[in-house]
Protein backbone atom coordinates (compact mmCIF):
# COMPACT_ATOMS: atom_id res chain seq x y z
CA UNK A 1 0.00 0.00 0.00
CA UNK A 2 1.58 3.18 -1.18
CA UNK A 3 0.36 6.56 -0.13
CA UNK A 4 0.06 9.55 -2.36
CA UNK A 5 -1.12 7.63 -5.38
CA UNK A 6 -4.80 8.32 -6.03
CA UNK A 7 -7.36 5.53 -6.33
CA UNK A 8 -10.47 7.66 -6.77
CA UNK A 9 -10.60 10.78 -8.88
CA UNK A 10 -13.68 12.97 -8.88
CA UNK A 11 -13.67 15.37 -11.82
CA UNK A 12 -16.28 18.14 -11.68
CA UNK A 13 -18.84 15.67 -10.40
CA UNK A 14 -22.36 17.04 -10.04
CA UNK A 15 -25.70 15.44 -9.21
CA UNK A 16 -28.93 17.36 -9.57
CA UNK A 17 -32.30 16.13 -8.39
CA UNK A 18 -34.68 18.40 -10.24
CA UNK A 19 -33.60 21.89 -9.28
CA UNK A 20 -31.70 20.69 -6.20
CA UNK A 21 -27.95 20.50 -6.59
CA UNK A 22 -27.21 17.66 -4.20
CA UNK A 23 -23.58 17.54 -5.33
CA UNK A 24 -22.34 20.66 -7.03
CA UNK A 25 -19.17 20.47 -9.10
CA UNK A 26 -16.88 18.51 -6.78
CA UNK A 27 -13.32 17.64 -7.76
CA UNK A 28 -10.80 15.86 -5.57
CA UNK A 29 -8.73 12.72 -5.28
CA UNK A 30 -8.75 9.98 -2.66
CA UNK A 31 -5.44 8.23 -2.08
CA UNK A 32 -4.87 4.51 -2.15
CA UNK A 33 -5.08 2.93 1.28
CA UNK A 34 -6.28 6.00 3.12
CA UNK A 35 -9.15 6.39 5.52
CA UNK A 36 -11.08 9.20 3.91
CA UNK A 37 -14.15 10.80 5.45
CA UNK A 38 -16.93 12.84 3.94
CA UNK A 39 -18.09 15.07 6.78
CA UNK A 40 -20.98 17.47 6.79
CA UNK A 41 -24.46 18.18 8.12
CA UNK A 42 -27.40 16.19 6.76
CA UNK A 43 -28.35 17.29 3.28
CA UNK A 44 -24.83 18.42 2.40
CA UNK A 45 -24.51 15.86 -0.40
CA UNK A 46 -22.11 13.45 1.29
CA UNK A 47 -24.40 10.43 0.99
CA UNK A 48 -25.26 11.28 -2.62
CA UNK A 49 -21.55 11.44 -3.38
CA UNK A 50 -21.01 8.06 -1.74
CA UNK A 51 -23.92 6.56 -3.66
CA UNK A 52 -22.35 7.84 -6.86
CA UNK A 53 -19.12 6.08 -5.92
CA UNK A 54 -21.10 2.87 -5.34
CA UNK A 55 -23.01 3.28 -8.59
CA UNK A 56 -26.50 3.72 -7.16
CA UNK A 57 -26.64 7.22 -8.62
CA UNK A 58 -25.28 8.35 -11.96
CA UNK A 59 -23.63 11.79 -11.96
CA UNK A 60 -25.54 14.50 -13.83
CA UNK A 61 -22.18 15.70 -15.12
CA UNK A 62 -18.51 15.08 -14.51
CA UNK A 63 -16.56 11.84 -14.23
CA UNK A 64 -15.68 9.39 -11.47
CA UNK A 65 -12.47 7.40 -11.94
CA UNK A 66 -11.69 4.39 -9.78
CA UNK A 67 -8.17 3.07 -10.25
CA UNK A 68 -7.85 4.96 -13.50
CA UNK A 69 -11.05 3.64 -15.00
CA UNK A 70 -14.05 5.86 -15.69
CA UNK A 71 -16.91 4.19 -13.80
CA UNK A 72 -19.43 7.05 -13.96
CA UNK A 73 -22.06 4.90 -15.70
CA UNK A 74 -20.91 1.45 -14.57
CA UNK A 75 -23.69 -0.30 -12.61
CA UNK A 76 -23.05 -1.16 -8.94
CA UNK A 77 -22.60 -4.89 -9.50
CA UNK A 78 -19.71 -4.29 -11.90
CA UNK A 79 -17.75 -1.87 -9.70
CA UNK A 80 -14.69 -2.62 -7.60
CA UNK A 81 -16.41 -1.04 -4.60
CA UNK A 82 -18.42 -2.48 -1.76
CA UNK A 83 -20.60 -0.69 0.70
CA UNK A 84 -21.56 -0.93 4.34
CA UNK A 85 -25.09 0.44 4.46
CA UNK A 86 -26.41 2.77 7.10
CA UNK A 87 -29.00 0.19 8.21
CA UNK A 88 -26.49 -2.60 7.40
CA UNK A 89 -28.95 -4.27 4.95
CA UNK A 90 -28.24 -7.73 6.37
CA UNK A 91 -30.22 -10.27 4.33
CA UNK A 92 -32.91 -11.41 6.78
CA UNK A 93 -33.46 -14.80 5.13
CA UNK A 94 -29.79 -15.81 5.32
CA UNK A 95 -27.53 -16.85 8.18
CA UNK A 96 -24.43 -14.89 9.12
CA UNK A 97 -22.27 -17.27 7.07
CA UNK A 98 -24.53 -17.01 4.02
CA UNK A 99 -24.60 -13.24 4.36
CA UNK A 100 -20.82 -13.03 4.36
CA UNK A 101 -20.53 -15.48 1.45
CA UNK A 102 -23.16 -13.65 -0.60
CA UNK A 103 -20.76 -11.74 -2.81
CA UNK A 104 -18.40 -14.71 -3.33
CA UNK A 105 -20.69 -16.69 -5.62
CA UNK A 106 -19.00 -15.50 -8.79
CA UNK A 107 -15.45 -15.58 -7.51
CA UNK A 108 -15.06 -19.21 -8.55
CA UNK A 109 -13.89 -20.45 -5.16
CA UNK A 110 -13.99 -24.12 -4.20
CA UNK A 111 -16.23 -25.12 -1.32
CA UNK A 112 -13.22 -25.32 0.97
CA UNK A 113 -11.81 -21.95 -0.08
CA UNK A 114 -15.23 -20.41 0.37
CA UNK A 115 -15.62 -21.82 3.87
CA UNK A 116 -12.09 -20.70 4.75
CA UNK A 117 -12.68 -17.18 3.43
CA UNK A 118 -15.84 -16.87 5.51
CA UNK A 119 -14.10 -18.24 8.61
CA UNK A 120 -11.25 -15.73 8.16
CA UNK A 121 -13.77 -12.94 7.81
CA UNK A 122 -15.55 -14.07 10.97
CA UNK A 123 -12.21 -14.05 12.76
CA UNK A 124 -11.44 -10.56 11.47
CA UNK A 125 -14.64 -9.21 12.97
CA UNK A 126 -14.20 -11.32 16.13
CA UNK A 127 -17.36 -13.32 15.52
CA UNK A 128 -15.91 -16.81 15.12
CA UNK A 129 -18.62 -19.31 15.98
CA UNK A 130 -21.45 -17.02 15.00
CA UNK A 131 -21.64 -18.30 11.41
CA UNK A 132 -24.87 -20.22 11.84
CA UNK A 133 -26.75 -17.48 13.65
CA UNK A 134 -29.80 -16.08 11.93
CA UNK A 135 -29.62 -12.38 11.28
CA UNK A 136 -32.48 -11.58 13.66
CA UNK A 137 -30.43 -13.04 16.52
CA UNK A 138 -27.71 -10.41 16.13
CA UNK A 139 -27.26 -7.21 18.11
CA UNK A 140 -26.77 -3.87 16.39
CA UNK A 141 -23.00 -4.02 16.76
CA UNK A 142 -22.86 -7.58 15.42
CA UNK A 143 -24.97 -6.66 12.40
CA UNK A 144 -22.55 -3.84 11.74
CA UNK A 145 -19.60 -6.24 11.83
CA UNK A 146 -21.32 -8.74 9.55
CA UNK A 147 -22.06 -5.97 7.05
CA UNK A 148 -18.40 -5.00 7.20
CA UNK A 149 -17.17 -8.58 6.72
CA UNK A 150 -19.65 -9.18 3.89
CA UNK A 151 -18.24 -6.20 2.02
CA UNK A 152 -14.58 -6.89 2.80
CA UNK A 153 -14.55 -10.55 1.64
CA UNK A 154 -15.27 -9.27 -1.87
CA UNK A 155 -11.83 -7.64 -1.75
CA UNK A 156 -13.00 -4.25 -2.98
CA UNK A 157 -10.53 -1.61 -4.11
CA UNK A 158 -12.59 0.87 -2.12
CA UNK A 159 -14.87 0.21 0.84
CA UNK A 160 -17.73 2.69 1.18
CA UNK A 161 -19.26 3.21 4.61
CA UNK A 162 -22.51 5.16 4.96
CA UNK A 163 -22.72 6.38 8.57
CA UNK A 164 -22.17 2.81 9.78
CA UNK A 165 -21.91 3.78 13.44
CA UNK A 166 -24.91 6.08 13.54
CA UNK A 167 -27.33 3.46 14.90
CA UNK A 168 -25.09 2.30 17.74
CA UNK A 169 -25.09 3.63 21.28
CA UNK A 170 -22.25 5.84 22.41
CA UNK A 171 -20.07 3.26 24.13
CA UNK A 172 -20.38 0.70 21.34
CA UNK A 173 -19.73 3.43 18.81
CA UNK A 174 -16.42 4.32 20.43
CA UNK A 175 -15.38 0.65 20.51
CA UNK A 176 -16.32 0.20 16.88
CA UNK A 177 -14.39 3.32 15.88
CA UNK A 178 -11.20 1.80 17.23
CA UNK A 179 -11.97 -1.53 15.66
CA UNK A 180 -12.84 -0.02 12.30
CA UNK A 181 -9.54 1.83 12.23
CA UNK A 182 -7.69 -1.33 13.17
CA UNK A 183 -9.43 -3.40 10.50
CA UNK A 184 -8.68 -0.74 7.93
CA UNK A 185 -4.97 -0.91 8.83
CA UNK A 186 -5.06 -4.72 8.72
CA UNK A 187 -6.66 -5.06 5.31
CA UNK A 188 -5.16 -1.91 3.82
CA UNK A 189 -8.25 -1.16 1.76
CA UNK A 190 -9.18 2.43 1.00
CA UNK A 191 -12.12 3.42 3.19
CA UNK A 192 -14.50 6.19 2.23
CA UNK A 193 -16.51 6.97 5.32
CA UNK A 194 -19.58 9.19 5.45
CA UNK A 195 -20.46 10.77 8.78
CA UNK A 196 -22.07 13.84 10.26
CA UNK A 197 -20.20 13.29 13.53
CA UNK A 198 -17.11 15.47 13.46
CA UNK A 199 -15.45 13.79 16.43
CA UNK A 200 -15.80 10.46 14.68
CA UNK A 201 -14.31 11.87 11.49
CA UNK A 202 -11.46 13.56 13.33
CA UNK A 203 -10.63 10.43 15.32
CA UNK A 204 -10.69 8.00 12.42
CA UNK A 205 -9.61 9.70 9.25
CA UNK A 206 -6.35 10.27 7.46
CA UNK A 207 -8.08 13.01 5.54
CA UNK A 208 -11.51 14.59 5.67
CA UNK A 209 -13.56 16.43 3.09
CA UNK A 210 -15.85 18.92 4.81
CA UNK A 211 -18.98 19.26 2.71
CA UNK A 212 -21.75 21.83 2.69
CA UNK A 213 -24.58 22.47 0.22
CA UNK A 214 -23.11 20.06 -2.32
CA UNK A 215 -19.60 21.51 -2.26
CA UNK A 216 -16.39 20.19 -0.76
CA UNK A 217 -15.20 23.17 1.29
CA UNK A 218 -11.88 21.85 2.53
CA UNK A 219 -10.03 18.56 2.15
CA UNK A 220 -7.33 18.09 4.72
CA UNK A 221 -6.00 16.08 7.62
CA UNK A 222 -7.92 16.42 10.88
CA UNK A 223 -5.38 18.69 12.57
CA UNK A 224 -5.21 21.00 9.56
CA UNK A 225 -9.01 21.32 9.48
CA UNK A 226 -8.96 22.23 13.14
CA UNK A 227 -5.92 24.52 13.19
CA UNK A 228 -6.09 26.03 9.73
CA UNK A 229 -9.66 26.10 8.40
CA UNK A 230 -9.82 27.74 5.00
CA UNK A 231 -13.20 29.39 5.41
CA UNK A 232 -15.65 30.52 8.07
CA UNK A 233 -17.99 27.60 7.41
CA UNK A 234 -15.33 24.98 8.08
CA UNK A 235 -14.09 26.94 11.08
CA UNK A 236 -17.59 27.09 12.54
CA UNK A 237 -18.44 23.46 11.74
CA UNK A 238 -15.34 21.83 13.23
CA UNK A 239 -15.23 22.44 16.99
CA UNK A 240 -16.27 25.83 18.33
CA UNK A 241 -14.80 29.11 17.23
CA UNK A 242 -14.88 32.80 18.09
CA UNK A 243 -15.03 35.23 15.20
CA UNK A 244 -14.04 38.91 15.23
CA UNK A 245 -14.96 40.89 12.14
CA UNK A 246 -13.05 43.80 10.79
CA UNK A 247 -11.26 45.22 7.81
CA UNK A 248 -7.72 44.23 6.90
CA UNK A 249 -5.19 47.02 7.38
CA UNK A 250 -1.99 45.31 6.29
CA UNK A 251 -0.13 42.01 6.23
CA UNK A 252 3.54 41.75 6.95
CA UNK A 253 5.73 38.81 7.82
CA UNK A 254 2.79 36.39 7.93
CA UNK A 255 0.90 38.52 10.45
CA UNK A 256 -2.20 40.48 9.55
CA UNK A 257 -3.39 43.62 11.29
CA UNK A 258 -7.14 44.07 11.37
CA UNK A 259 -9.24 47.05 12.41
CA UNK A 260 -11.97 45.41 14.43
CA UNK A 261 -14.15 48.44 15.20
CA UNK A 262 -14.90 48.73 18.93
CA UNK A 263 -12.32 46.03 19.74
CA UNK A 264 -9.48 48.11 18.37
CA UNK A 265 -6.67 46.64 16.36
CA UNK A 266 -6.26 42.85 16.35
CA UNK A 267 -3.64 40.61 14.76
CA UNK A 268 -3.65 37.08 13.41
CA UNK A 269 -1.40 34.83 11.39
CA UNK A 270 -2.28 35.18 7.72
CA UNK A 271 -1.90 32.68 4.91
CA UNK A 272 0.19 33.63 1.90
CA UNK A 273 -2.84 34.20 -0.26
CA UNK A 274 -4.35 36.73 2.17
CA UNK A 275 -6.54 39.39 0.52
CA UNK A 276 -5.45 42.94 -0.05
CA UNK A 277 -5.79 45.78 2.47
CA UNK A 278 -9.31 47.07 3.01
CA UNK A 279 -10.99 43.64 2.57
CA UNK A 280 -13.59 42.53 5.05
CA UNK A 281 -12.12 39.68 7.09
CA UNK A 282 -12.74 37.63 10.23
CA UNK A 283 -10.26 36.66 12.86
CA UNK A 284 -11.02 33.18 14.19
CA UNK A 285 -9.74 31.93 17.54
CA UNK A 286 -10.53 28.66 19.29
CA UNK A 287 -11.89 29.01 22.86
CA UNK A 288 -8.99 27.02 24.33
CA UNK A 289 -6.43 29.37 22.74
CA UNK A 290 -7.74 32.37 24.64
CA UNK A 291 -6.40 33.31 28.05
CA UNK A 292 -8.24 35.09 30.83
CA UNK A 293 -6.61 37.46 33.28
CA UNK A 294 -7.78 40.01 35.88
CA UNK A 295 -5.10 42.45 34.83
CA UNK A 296 -4.41 43.96 31.47
CA UNK A 297 -1.82 41.80 29.70
CA UNK A 298 1.47 43.17 28.43
CA UNK A 299 1.65 44.76 24.99
CA UNK A 300 2.36 42.64 21.89
CA UNK A 301 -0.71 40.52 22.33
CA UNK A 302 -4.33 40.87 21.34
CA UNK A 303 -6.37 41.92 24.33
CA UNK A 304 -10.05 42.60 24.81
CA UNK A 305 -11.79 43.74 27.98
CA UNK A 306 -15.09 42.20 28.99
CA UNK A 307 -17.17 40.83 31.83
CA UNK A 308 -17.66 37.19 32.73
CA UNK A 309 -21.24 36.31 31.86
CA UNK A 310 -21.39 32.58 32.63
CA UNK A 311 -19.11 29.89 33.89
CA UNK A 312 -19.57 26.16 33.34
CA UNK A 313 -17.40 23.88 35.44
CA UNK A 314 -16.39 20.48 33.96
CA UNK A 315 -13.75 19.40 36.46
CA UNK A 316 -10.80 19.11 34.13
CA UNK A 317 -11.72 22.35 32.42
CA UNK A 318 -14.11 25.26 32.65
CA UNK A 319 -15.99 27.10 29.95
CA UNK A 320 -16.65 30.81 30.24
CA UNK A 321 -18.75 33.23 28.28
CA UNK A 322 -17.35 36.73 28.34
CA UNK A 323 -19.62 39.60 27.32
CA UNK A 324 -17.80 42.34 25.44
CA UNK A 325 -19.23 45.77 24.70
CA UNK A 326 -19.86 46.18 20.98
CA UNK A 327 -20.09 42.42 20.31
CA UNK A 328 -23.51 40.80 19.91
CA UNK A 329 -22.26 37.34 20.88
CA UNK A 330 -20.28 36.66 24.05
CA UNK A 331 -16.78 35.25 23.57
CA UNK A 332 -16.33 31.59 24.50
CA UNK A 333 -13.23 30.74 26.50
CA UNK A 334 -12.14 27.27 27.60
CA UNK A 335 -9.50 26.89 30.30
CA UNK A 336 -7.74 23.81 31.53
CA UNK A 337 -7.77 23.21 35.26
CA UNK A 338 -4.01 23.65 35.37
CA UNK A 339 -4.10 27.27 34.29
CA UNK A 340 -7.45 28.28 35.67
CA UNK A 341 -7.05 31.60 37.36
CA UNK A 342 -10.59 32.11 38.42
CA UNK A 343 -11.24 29.70 41.27
CA UNK A 344 -13.45 32.24 42.84
CA UNK A 345 -17.11 31.23 42.79
CA UNK A 346 -18.19 34.83 42.55
CA UNK A 347 -16.32 35.46 39.32
CA UNK A 348 -19.53 36.05 37.36
CA UNK A 349 -19.97 39.71 36.50
CA UNK A 350 -16.36 40.60 37.20
CA UNK A 351 -14.37 42.53 34.58
CA UNK A 352 -11.71 40.42 32.89
CA UNK A 353 -9.14 40.59 30.10
CA UNK A 354 -9.09 38.15 27.21
CA UNK A 355 -5.82 37.81 25.35
CA UNK A 356 -4.21 35.62 22.68
CA UNK A 357 -1.03 35.39 20.71
CA UNK A 358 -1.31 36.43 17.04
CA UNK A 359 -0.23 32.94 15.85
CA UNK A 360 -3.14 31.36 17.77
CA UNK A 361 -5.66 33.10 15.50
CA UNK A 362 -6.51 32.48 11.85
CA UNK A 363 -7.41 35.13 9.31
CA UNK A 364 -10.43 34.24 7.17
CA UNK A 365 -11.94 36.20 4.31
CA UNK A 366 -15.62 37.01 4.52
Amino acid sequence: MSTGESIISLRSVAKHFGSVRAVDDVSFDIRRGEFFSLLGPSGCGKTTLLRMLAGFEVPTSGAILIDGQDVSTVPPHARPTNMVFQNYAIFPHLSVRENIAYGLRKKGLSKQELAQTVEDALALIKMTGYGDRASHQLSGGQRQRVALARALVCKPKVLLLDEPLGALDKKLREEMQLELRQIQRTVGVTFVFVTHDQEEALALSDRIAVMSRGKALQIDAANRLYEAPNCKEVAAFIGSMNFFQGSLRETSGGTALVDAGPLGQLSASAAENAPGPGSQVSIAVRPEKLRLAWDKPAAGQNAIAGRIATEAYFGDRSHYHVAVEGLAEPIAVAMQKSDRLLDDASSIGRPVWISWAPEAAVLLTE
Partner: protein
Amino acid sequence: MSKRFDLLTIYGIVFLVFLYAPVLLLPVFSVNDATVAIFPLKGFTLKAYGQMVNNPALLAALKNSLVVAVGVSVVSTAFGLLAAMGVTRYKLPGQGPVMSVIMLPLVVPSIILAVALLVLVRQVFDIPLTLWTVAAGHILICVPFSMMVLMSRLEGFDRSLEEASADLGESGWMTFWRVTFPIAMPGIVASLLMCFTISLDEYVLAFFLSGLDQTLPIFLYGQLRFPQRLPMTLALGTTILIVSTIIVIFSEILRRRGVQSTKPTGL
Protein backbone atom coordinates in the same frame (compact mmCIF):
# COMPACT_ATOMS: atom_id res chain seq x y z
CA MET B 1 -56.90 -14.19 31.21
CA SER B 2 -60.17 -14.57 33.04
CA LYS B 3 -62.00 -17.83 32.80
CA ARG B 4 -65.52 -16.55 33.31
CA PHE B 5 -68.31 -17.62 31.03
CA ASP B 6 -69.89 -14.36 29.98
CA LEU B 7 -72.28 -13.57 27.15
CA LEU B 8 -69.47 -12.94 24.71
CA THR B 9 -68.00 -16.40 25.26
CA ILE B 10 -71.38 -18.02 24.77
CA TYR B 11 -71.90 -15.97 21.63
CA GLY B 12 -68.53 -17.13 20.36
CA ILE B 13 -69.30 -20.78 20.94
CA VAL B 14 -72.74 -20.52 19.32
CA PHE B 15 -71.19 -18.73 16.37
CA LEU B 16 -68.60 -21.47 15.86
CA VAL B 17 -71.22 -24.20 16.14
CA PHE B 18 -73.42 -22.56 13.51
CA LEU B 19 -70.42 -22.02 11.26
CA TYR B 20 -68.90 -25.48 11.41
CA ALA B 21 -71.57 -27.94 12.53
CA PRO B 22 -73.09 -28.22 9.04
CA VAL B 23 -69.64 -28.82 7.61
CA LEU B 24 -68.97 -31.52 10.18
CA LEU B 25 -72.19 -33.28 9.19
CA LEU B 26 -70.57 -34.00 5.83
CA PRO B 27 -68.13 -36.66 7.06
CA VAL B 28 -70.78 -38.08 9.40
CA PHE B 29 -73.29 -38.72 6.59
CA SER B 30 -70.58 -39.80 4.16
CA VAL B 31 -69.97 -42.94 6.22
CA ASN B 32 -73.69 -43.50 6.91
CA ASP B 33 -75.15 -46.59 5.34
CA ALA B 34 -78.11 -44.87 3.66
CA THR B 35 -78.85 -42.83 0.55
CA VAL B 36 -80.58 -40.00 2.36
CA ALA B 37 -78.77 -37.63 4.68
CA ILE B 38 -81.07 -37.76 7.70
CA PHE B 39 -80.85 -38.89 11.29
CA PRO B 40 -80.91 -41.45 12.81
CA LEU B 41 -77.74 -42.92 11.33
CA LYS B 42 -78.15 -46.39 9.93
CA GLY B 43 -74.66 -47.83 10.24
CA PHE B 44 -71.02 -47.36 9.23
CA THR B 45 -69.85 -47.98 5.66
CA LEU B 46 -67.11 -46.81 3.30
CA LYS B 47 -69.21 -47.76 0.28
CA ALA B 48 -69.54 -44.14 -0.81
CA TYR B 49 -65.78 -43.74 -0.92
CA GLY B 50 -65.53 -46.81 -3.09
CA GLN B 51 -68.10 -45.35 -5.48
CA MET B 52 -66.17 -42.13 -5.52
CA VAL B 53 -62.83 -43.60 -6.60
CA ASN B 54 -64.56 -45.83 -9.16
CA ASN B 55 -66.42 -43.00 -10.87
CA PRO B 56 -64.42 -41.92 -13.97
CA ALA B 57 -66.52 -38.80 -14.58
CA LEU B 58 -65.85 -37.61 -11.04
CA LEU B 59 -62.15 -38.31 -11.30
CA ALA B 60 -62.00 -36.48 -14.63
CA ALA B 61 -63.72 -33.45 -13.13
CA LEU B 62 -61.38 -33.57 -10.16
CA LYS B 63 -58.38 -33.74 -12.46
CA ASN B 64 -59.71 -30.83 -14.54
CA SER B 65 -60.20 -28.74 -11.44
CA LEU B 66 -56.75 -29.50 -10.08
CA VAL B 67 -55.05 -28.69 -13.39
CA VAL B 68 -56.96 -25.42 -13.72
CA ALA B 69 -56.37 -24.49 -10.08
CA VAL B 70 -52.63 -25.17 -10.22
CA GLY B 71 -52.25 -23.22 -13.46
CA VAL B 72 -54.40 -20.36 -12.22
CA SER B 73 -52.56 -20.08 -8.91
CA VAL B 74 -49.13 -19.97 -10.58
CA VAL B 75 -50.09 -17.47 -13.29
CA SER B 76 -52.13 -15.25 -10.95
CA THR B 77 -49.33 -15.19 -8.40
CA ALA B 78 -46.77 -14.30 -11.05
CA PHE B 79 -48.98 -11.43 -12.26
CA GLY B 80 -49.80 -10.43 -8.70
CA LEU B 81 -46.13 -10.40 -7.72
CA LEU B 82 -45.14 -8.19 -10.65
CA ALA B 83 -48.03 -5.81 -10.00
CA ALA B 84 -47.35 -5.70 -6.26
CA MET B 85 -43.65 -5.00 -6.83
CA GLY B 86 -44.50 -2.23 -9.26
CA VAL B 87 -47.01 -0.61 -6.93
CA THR B 88 -44.97 -0.86 -3.74
CA ARG B 89 -41.68 0.48 -5.09
CA TYR B 90 -42.49 3.02 -7.77
CA LYS B 91 -44.77 6.01 -7.93
CA LEU B 92 -46.36 5.35 -11.29
CA PRO B 93 -48.43 7.81 -13.29
CA GLY B 94 -52.09 6.80 -13.18
CA GLN B 95 -51.41 4.32 -10.38
CA GLY B 96 -54.73 4.98 -8.64
CA PRO B 97 -57.01 4.32 -11.65
CA VAL B 98 -54.93 1.29 -12.72
CA MET B 99 -55.18 -0.21 -9.23
CA SER B 100 -58.94 0.36 -9.23
CA VAL B 101 -59.28 -1.48 -12.54
CA ILE B 102 -57.19 -4.43 -11.30
CA MET B 103 -59.27 -4.63 -8.12
CA LEU B 104 -62.58 -4.31 -9.97
CA PRO B 105 -63.31 -8.07 -10.20
CA LEU B 106 -63.50 -8.06 -6.39
CA VAL B 107 -66.64 -5.94 -6.42
CA VAL B 108 -68.25 -6.84 -9.73
CA PRO B 109 -70.77 -9.69 -9.12
CA SER B 110 -69.31 -12.82 -10.66
CA ILE B 111 -72.53 -13.55 -12.57
CA ILE B 112 -72.14 -10.21 -14.40
CA LEU B 113 -68.48 -10.94 -15.02
CA ALA B 114 -69.34 -14.41 -16.28
CA VAL B 115 -71.95 -13.19 -18.76
CA ALA B 116 -69.65 -10.44 -19.99
CA LEU B 117 -66.79 -12.86 -20.46
CA LEU B 118 -69.03 -15.35 -22.24
CA VAL B 119 -70.15 -12.66 -24.68
CA LEU B 120 -66.55 -11.60 -25.19
CA VAL B 121 -65.23 -15.11 -25.70
CA ARG B 122 -68.01 -16.44 -27.92
CA GLN B 123 -69.39 -13.40 -29.76
CA VAL B 124 -66.39 -11.14 -30.07
CA PHE B 125 -63.43 -13.51 -30.36
CA ASP B 126 -65.31 -16.72 -31.18
CA ILE B 127 -63.01 -18.88 -29.06
CA PRO B 128 -64.34 -22.35 -28.20
CA LEU B 129 -65.13 -22.88 -24.51
CA THR B 130 -62.52 -25.09 -22.87
CA LEU B 131 -60.68 -25.34 -19.61
CA TRP B 132 -58.43 -22.57 -20.96
CA THR B 133 -61.32 -20.11 -20.94
CA VAL B 134 -62.21 -21.22 -17.41
CA ALA B 135 -58.62 -20.65 -16.32
CA ALA B 136 -58.53 -17.22 -17.94
CA GLY B 137 -61.68 -16.23 -16.07
CA HIS B 138 -60.27 -17.52 -12.82
CA ILE B 139 -57.01 -15.62 -13.30
CA LEU B 140 -59.04 -12.45 -13.68
CA ILE B 141 -60.64 -12.87 -10.26
CA CYS B 142 -57.51 -14.28 -8.57
CA VAL B 143 -55.02 -11.54 -9.51
CA PRO B 144 -56.55 -8.94 -7.15
CA PHE B 145 -56.38 -11.38 -4.24
CA SER B 146 -52.84 -12.34 -5.07
CA MET B 147 -51.86 -8.71 -5.39
CA MET B 148 -53.34 -7.77 -2.03
CA VAL B 149 -51.55 -10.61 -0.26
CA LEU B 150 -48.22 -9.77 -1.89
CA MET B 151 -48.55 -6.02 -1.44
CA SER B 152 -48.89 -6.48 2.29
CA ARG B 153 -45.76 -8.64 2.23
CA LEU B 154 -43.73 -6.25 0.09
CA GLU B 155 -44.91 -3.12 1.89
CA GLY B 156 -41.95 -1.87 3.86
CA PHE B 157 -39.58 -4.06 1.89
CA ASP B 158 -36.14 -2.63 2.53
CA ARG B 159 -34.84 -1.46 -0.82
CA SER B 160 -31.32 -1.29 0.55
CA LEU B 161 -31.32 -5.12 0.58
CA GLU B 162 -31.53 -5.09 -3.20
CA GLU B 163 -28.92 -2.37 -3.35
CA ALA B 164 -26.67 -4.45 -1.12
CA SER B 165 -27.10 -7.41 -3.46
CA ALA B 166 -26.23 -5.27 -6.48
CA ASP B 167 -23.28 -3.86 -4.58
CA LEU B 168 -22.08 -7.40 -3.85
CA GLY B 169 -21.97 -8.17 -7.54
CA GLU B 170 -25.38 -9.54 -8.49
CA SER B 171 -27.33 -8.30 -11.49
CA GLY B 172 -31.00 -7.32 -11.24
CA TRP B 173 -32.22 -10.79 -12.23
CA MET B 174 -30.03 -12.66 -9.73
CA THR B 175 -30.89 -10.10 -7.06
CA PHE B 176 -34.54 -10.93 -7.61
CA TRP B 177 -33.92 -14.67 -7.19
CA ARG B 178 -31.49 -14.41 -4.28
CA VAL B 179 -33.11 -11.60 -2.27
CA THR B 180 -36.53 -10.37 -3.35
CA PHE B 181 -38.09 -13.74 -4.11
CA PRO B 182 -37.03 -15.56 -0.92
CA ILE B 183 -38.09 -12.63 1.25
CA ALA B 184 -41.46 -12.47 -0.51
CA MET B 185 -41.74 -16.28 -0.28
CA PRO B 186 -44.28 -16.50 2.58
CA GLY B 187 -46.51 -14.10 0.65
CA ILE B 188 -46.03 -16.09 -2.54
CA VAL B 189 -47.02 -19.34 -0.82
CA ALA B 190 -50.05 -17.66 0.72
CA SER B 191 -51.03 -16.27 -2.67
CA LEU B 192 -50.62 -19.65 -4.39
CA LEU B 193 -52.82 -21.35 -1.81
CA MET B 194 -55.44 -18.64 -1.89
CA CYS B 195 -55.68 -18.63 -5.70
CA PHE B 196 -55.74 -22.44 -5.73
CA THR B 197 -58.68 -22.48 -3.34
CA ILE B 198 -60.58 -19.75 -5.16
CA SER B 199 -60.20 -21.51 -8.49
CA LEU B 200 -61.00 -24.94 -7.08
CA ASP B 201 -64.41 -23.99 -5.69
CA GLU B 202 -65.41 -21.28 -8.15
CA TYR B 203 -68.76 -22.17 -9.71
CA VAL B 204 -70.31 -19.30 -11.67
CA LEU B 205 -67.46 -18.43 -14.04
CA ALA B 206 -66.65 -22.10 -14.56
CA PHE B 207 -70.30 -22.81 -15.38
CA PHE B 208 -70.42 -20.10 -18.05
CA LEU B 209 -66.96 -20.55 -19.49
CA SER B 210 -66.49 -24.32 -19.53
CA GLY B 211 -67.23 -26.50 -22.51
CA LEU B 212 -67.44 -30.27 -22.39
CA ASP B 213 -64.77 -30.60 -19.72
CA GLN B 214 -66.40 -29.93 -16.38
CA THR B 215 -64.72 -28.70 -13.27
CA LEU B 216 -65.50 -30.33 -9.95
CA PRO B 217 -68.06 -27.83 -8.59
CA ILE B 218 -70.10 -28.09 -11.77
CA PHE B 219 -69.91 -31.87 -11.74
CA LEU B 220 -70.97 -31.96 -8.09
CA TYR B 221 -73.90 -29.66 -8.68
CA GLY B 222 -74.99 -31.87 -11.54
CA GLN B 223 -74.85 -34.93 -9.30
CA LEU B 224 -77.34 -33.47 -6.83
CA ARG B 225 -80.11 -34.21 -9.29
CA PHE B 226 -79.63 -37.92 -8.57
CA PRO B 227 -80.52 -38.69 -4.94
CA GLN B 228 -78.78 -42.08 -4.96
CA ARG B 229 -75.45 -40.40 -5.73
CA LEU B 230 -75.60 -38.13 -2.69
CA PRO B 231 -73.39 -40.34 -0.48
CA MET B 232 -70.66 -40.25 -3.11
CA THR B 233 -70.86 -36.45 -3.22
CA LEU B 234 -70.61 -36.38 0.56
CA ALA B 235 -67.56 -38.63 0.44
CA LEU B 236 -65.89 -36.32 -2.05
CA GLY B 237 -66.77 -33.30 0.08
CA THR B 238 -65.25 -34.98 3.11
CA THR B 239 -62.08 -35.79 1.23
CA ILE B 240 -61.70 -32.22 0.04
CA LEU B 241 -62.39 -30.96 3.56
CA ILE B 242 -59.66 -33.13 5.07
CA VAL B 243 -57.09 -32.33 2.37
CA SER B 244 -57.72 -28.59 2.50
CA THR B 245 -57.54 -28.59 6.31
CA ILE B 246 -54.16 -30.27 6.09
CA ILE B 247 -52.99 -27.75 3.48
CA VAL B 248 -54.15 -24.78 5.56
CA ILE B 249 -52.44 -26.09 8.70
CA PHE B 250 -49.27 -26.79 6.75
CA SER B 251 -49.22 -23.36 5.12
CA GLU B 252 -49.85 -21.66 8.44
CA ILE B 253 -46.87 -23.49 9.93
CA LEU B 254 -44.78 -22.40 6.95
CA ARG B 255 -45.96 -18.82 7.27
CA ARG B 256 -45.11 -18.62 10.97
CA ARG B 257 -41.63 -19.94 10.32
CA GLY B 258 -41.29 -17.37 7.55
CA VAL B 259 -42.33 -14.53 9.82
CA GLN B 260 -39.83 -15.59 12.46
CA SER B 261 -36.84 -15.91 10.18
CA THR B 262 -37.38 -12.97 7.84
CA LYS B 263 -38.50 -10.17 10.11
CA PRO B 264 -35.45 -8.41 11.51
CA THR B 265 -35.76 -7.47 15.16
CA GLY B 266 -35.13 -3.79 14.69
CA LEU B 267 -31.68 -2.31 14.85
